[in-house]
């Protein structure tokens, strides 16, 4: 995706966000809505300006955006999409499964998928256990900070 397109998409997203916040703020009483109104109106105006700007602005970043760059970007996007998905699943399951168990699974899976050079298989659980042992020692034993529990630990 070129910078021009990224900017255009983000301008639309932000316009909708500020627009929604503006409409939502209409139901606030007079005093609490003064500042949100100012912010959202200004946000809508600036987002619209950003959108319009994408039609006439020259983007230096896009000058060297060729097929090779596109292929590289696609590979990176795929990895980031996987990373986001893994993070969403991880965070979503913390309360259900329990922090330590799901973190162990997340650490192994995430490091395996994200690392470009593969390591011996036994290193993934060992590193995950090591990191979680340190977290357990510091947070649960030393600082006594409770971490979420599910049907497992």
């Amino acid at each position, binding site marked *: 995706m070129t910078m021009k397109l990224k900017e255009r998409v983000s301008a639309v997203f932000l316009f909708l*966000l500020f627009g929604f916040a503006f409409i939502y703020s209409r139901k606030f009483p007079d005093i609490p809505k003064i500042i949100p109104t100012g912010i959202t109106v200004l946000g809508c105006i600036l987002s619209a300006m950003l959108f319009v700007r994408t039609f006439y602005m020259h983007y230096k970043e896009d000058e060297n955006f060729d097929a090779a760059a596109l292929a590289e970007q696609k590979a990176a996007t795929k990895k*980031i999409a996987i990373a986001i998905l893994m993070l969403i699943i991880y965070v979503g399951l913390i309360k259900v499964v329990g922090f330590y168990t799901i973190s162990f699974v997340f650490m192994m899976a995430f490091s395996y998928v994200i690392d470009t050079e593969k390591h011996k298989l036994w290193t993934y659980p060992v590193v995950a256990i090591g990191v979680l042992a340190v977290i357990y020692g510091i947070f649960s034993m030393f600082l006594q900070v409770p971490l979420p529990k599910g049907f497992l630990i």
Partner: protein
Amino acid sequence: MLSNILMGFSTAFNPMNLLLLMGGTVLGILFGALPGVSSTMGVAVLIPLTYGMDAASGLIMLAGIYCGSTYGGSISACLLNTPGTPASAATTMDGFPMTRKGRGGEALQEACIASFWGGIAGALALFFLAPPIANFSLKFGSQENAMMAVFGLTIIVSLSSGSLLKGFISGLLGLLVSMVGMDVATAYPRYIFNITALYGGIAIIPAIVGLYSLTQLLTSSGEKTGVLTDDNIKKLHVPKITPKDFVRYPLTYIKSSIIGAFVGIVPGAGGNIAGYMAYNEAKRTSKTPDEFGKGCREGVAATESANNAVCGGSLIPMLTLGIPGNSVAAVLMGGLMIQGLNPGFSLFTNYAHVTYPFLAGFVLAQFAFTIVGLIGAKQFAQVVKVPKGFLLAGIGVLCVVGSYAASNNITDVYIMLIFGIVGYFLKTAGFDISAIVLGLMLGSLAEAGFMQAFNLCHKSIGATLMSFVTRPISLVLLIICVVSCFSPLMSAHKKKKAQS
């Protein structure tokens, strides 16, 4: 004040606090040495370690993390030509050429010594400038408080080097997020969507962890693993240190430290700017300017003294006026708030028992990273070899722990995740994350000031606006805001004109 300073040092010298300081420093150096893991991310991820501690001990540890990570950035800058933190960018200019000449150990040694002198200068500035500024802030009323927050927001102009328009939008987004929760004047709940956890507003720490740490994690996930040659680390020879090494470039240390401390005080200007400014100054006045850029030890001395002096300087506006000097100071401000402390004069009076140990810890942190750095430079250099997958997975888990442990609330973890993902997409589109954080942190402060002024002026908008220009301090602050907004624009315009 002297009694407070002595009390601060006696608390900081407590064995447990010294241990925490040392631990924080070591962790800070490790985080700083990792390319792509900035000081901001290091401090944000490690703040949760301080939750269970008393305020003074927690802040002493944070001082160690901050100073350690700023110094740690020089390790990868010297060895790999990749600054561990943005503040060390200028160090690559001479640090890496030194390494290529087989003088990498010498470069690390100089970076450590220069960082020490810079850090001490920053700490002195913090000790002696912060209390009078905090005292002056007592003259502030609601108008002045609002104008201070607005002044903090004008930093967005200097931060938005890429696009001012995007900088303003980022700032507005931060301000909008700061509106979530109960309104300061009437306690009316805004944008909470029936979620009870949002009544108190968006918690700052999860938002910061998401915006800085998770965003960086996602960015690094998509990057190809950097081809980091470890030949430089294998061949690294650290020479024996002599007392003469500590005072090799006294004038450079002094000049660069002064530059760094002042740049630190100016909100928005960071360690990277100070590094380049000090480098230019050292080169200009050097007897051997031609050596600069080719592996000159004095070049490393200049940049490292300056970027470490920034640490102390950046804390001055944060502690006294509630304006974070840079992104790390913004995160530290979150750490202060978690401990129930608010910036301002009360920090130096009512909470002197917390603030002065923190300041003393800041001084001791300079000694801590110097000792640790000089002894373990070669060992710390190994950290750059940690595989990316393991590192990022560990950071992901720490992000979750950090946001959850702040208030034992799973909603904070969801907030962190949302901010991280949205922050990542905005960052890739060239939006400035720091501007969002500034808006978020200063939004409620600005609103509280405006609403107080509005109430004092009998709820008349015209009279409220007039009160901002009829009060002398408020008027001066307003002028400073205008200058702060327009001077970067003017200089950019002049530069453009000169180029064309």
